[in-house]
C-alpha cells in the first residue's frame, strides 16, 4: 500500500499518458474507421474491395506486430516523430478496422424494408435517411463501438514495450524495485484501467438509454 502512496505522482502521470493515448487514438480511430466504413458500404466497387482488404489485414494481425512495423518502419522512411505518435498511429491503424466493422454491422442491421417503407410513404431520400435510417443505425452501433474503445484502452498497455511511460510501463518499473509489494502494485495500476473502462461503459449506457426507442 505504502508503495502506491509514495509513488502516487508517478501513477498519476502514467494515468495521464494512458488517458491521452486512449483519447487521441480513440478519436483518430473513430474518424479513420468511419472513412473505411463509408468505403465498404458505399457504391464504388474498388473502394469496397480496398476497405475489405484493409480490415482483413489489420484485424488479423497482432497489434504487437503492427507496432513493430510502425515503430521501427517509419524511421526507415526518414520519419522520426519520437515515441508518442508512432504508438498512436499503430493503435489507430489496428483499432479503426474494428470501428469500421462495428459501423458496417450497425448499418447492415437496419432491414431494407425500413428504407422501402419510408420511401413508399413519400419521404424524400434525405428525409428517409434523417428520420428513419440513421437514427436507428446510430443506436445500433453504440454498444459495439463502446466495446471497441474499451479494447483500445486495454490495448494501449502494449505501448509499454515501445518506450512510453504508461500505466503498464510504470507498473513494471515499480515491480522491479518493490517485488514484495506485487499484489498492491498490480491492483493499484489495474484499478486505473478499470476506471477508464467503466467511464466508457457508463457513457455508452447513458447514450444508449437516451436514444432508446420509446
Amino acid at each position: 500500500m505504502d508503495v502506491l502512496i509514495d509513488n502516487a505522482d508517478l501513477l498519476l502521470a502514467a494515468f495521464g499518458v494512458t488517458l491521452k493515448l486512449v483519447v487521441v487514438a480513440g478519436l483518430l480511430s473513430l474518424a479513420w474507421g468511419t472513412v473505411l466504413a463509408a468505403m465498404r458500404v458505399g457504391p464504388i466497387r474498388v473502394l469496397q474491395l480496398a476497405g475489405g482488404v484493409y480490415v482483413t489485414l489489420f484485424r488479423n494481425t497482432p497489434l504487437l506486430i503492427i507496432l513493430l512495423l510502425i515503430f521501427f518502419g517509419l524511421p526507415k522512411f526518414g520519419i522520426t516523430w519520437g515515441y508518442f505518435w508512432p504508438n498512436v498511429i499503430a493503435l489507430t491503424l489496428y483499432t479503426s478496422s474494428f470501428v469500421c466493422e462495428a459501423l458496417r454491422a450497425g448499418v447492415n442491421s437496419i432491414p431494407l424494408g425500413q428504407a422501402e417503407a419510408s420511401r413508399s410513404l413519400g419521404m424524400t431520400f434525405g428525409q428517409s435517411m434523417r428520420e428513419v435510417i440513421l437514427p436507428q443505425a446510430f443506436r445500433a452501433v453504440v454498444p459495439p463501438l463502446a466495446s471497441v474503445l474499451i479494447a483500445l484502452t486495454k490495448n494501449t498497455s502494449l505501448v509499454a514495450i515501445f518506450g512510453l511511460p504508461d500505466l503498464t510501463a510504470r507498473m513494471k518499473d515499480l515491480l522491479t524495485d518493490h517485488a514484495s509489494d506485487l499484489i498492491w502494485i498490480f491492483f493499484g495500476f489495474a484499478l486505473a484501467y478499470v476506471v477508464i473502462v467503466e467511464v466508457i461503459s457508463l457513457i455508452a449506457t447513458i447514450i444508449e438509454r437516451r436514444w432508446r426507442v420509446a
Partner: protein
Amino acid sequence: MAASVLFDAPGPKTRARHRLYAVISTIALAGIGALVLWRLWIAGQFDPDLWEPFVTPRIVNALLWGLGQTLLMAVVAVLGAVILGFVLGIAKLSDHALVRWPSWLVVEFFRAVPLFMLIIGTWYLLGPQPGGNGYWAVVIGLWLYNGAVIAEITRAGIAALPRGQAEAAYALGMRKSTVMQLILLPQAVKIMLPAIISQSIVALKDTSLGYAVLAPGLTFIGKQVFGEFRNIIPTALVMAATYIMLNLLLTWLATWAQKRFAGEKKIEVTTVAAVGLSSAAESGAPGGGL
C-alpha cells in the same frame, strides 16, 4: 429499390458518376501502393540479403519451431480458458449468492484489466526470467482473460435457450445439476461454439505478447532473427502473414460452425467482451474479437 438502405438504385447519370469515382479511386489506391513500395525500395527493404533468412533452412526451422510453440501455447490457453470459462459462467448463474457474487467479480475484473498487464504481473510473480516463466505467464494471463470472456459467452449461450427447456426438465423431476449437465449445457455448447472459436482468434493473436516476457514463440524467434540480420520490416511482414493465414483459417472454421451448429442464434464476441454492457446480441455481422 436499392440493394442497400443507404442509397437508391442509381440512374444512368449516377452510374456514370460512379464509374468516374471508380477510376479516380483506382488511380489513387494504385498511387498510394506504388508510393509505399517505392519508398521501401529506396530504403533498401527489398535487398535480397534481408529476405534470404526466410529461405535459409536454419532460420526457417527456428521460425517453424517458434510457430509450433505458439500454436501449442494457443491450444493450452484456449483449453484452459474454456474449462475456467464454463466453471465461472455456470457459477454466475448459481442460485447461491455466495457463489454468484465472487464469480461475477472475478469475471468483471479480468475482463477490464489489460491482458498485457496481467501477463507482466504474472511474470513478476513467477520471477522475471526468460523461458518457462515467461511461457507460463502468457498462458496464465490468457487463461484468466479468455476464461472471463468465455464465462460471459457461457452465460449468454445458456440464456439464449428457450426457458421451457429448463422448466420441462424440472417438471420431469431432474435436479439442478442434472438439468445443467443433460439439458442446458449440451444445447448451449452448440450456440457457443462459433463465439469460442472467434475468441480463439483473439487468444492466438495475443500469444504474440510472449515477445515482451521472453516466452518461446513465433514473435520471440522473430526478435532474434531481426536482431541477427537487421531486417525488422521483412521479419515483421513474414510474421504478420503467418498470423493472418492462421486467423483466416479460424474465421472460416467459426463461420462453418455457425452454419452447422448454431444457426440463427449468434453470440457477439465483441459485445460480450465489453464490460457492463448488455452482453447477448442475437444478430449482426460475424464478430472478430479484438
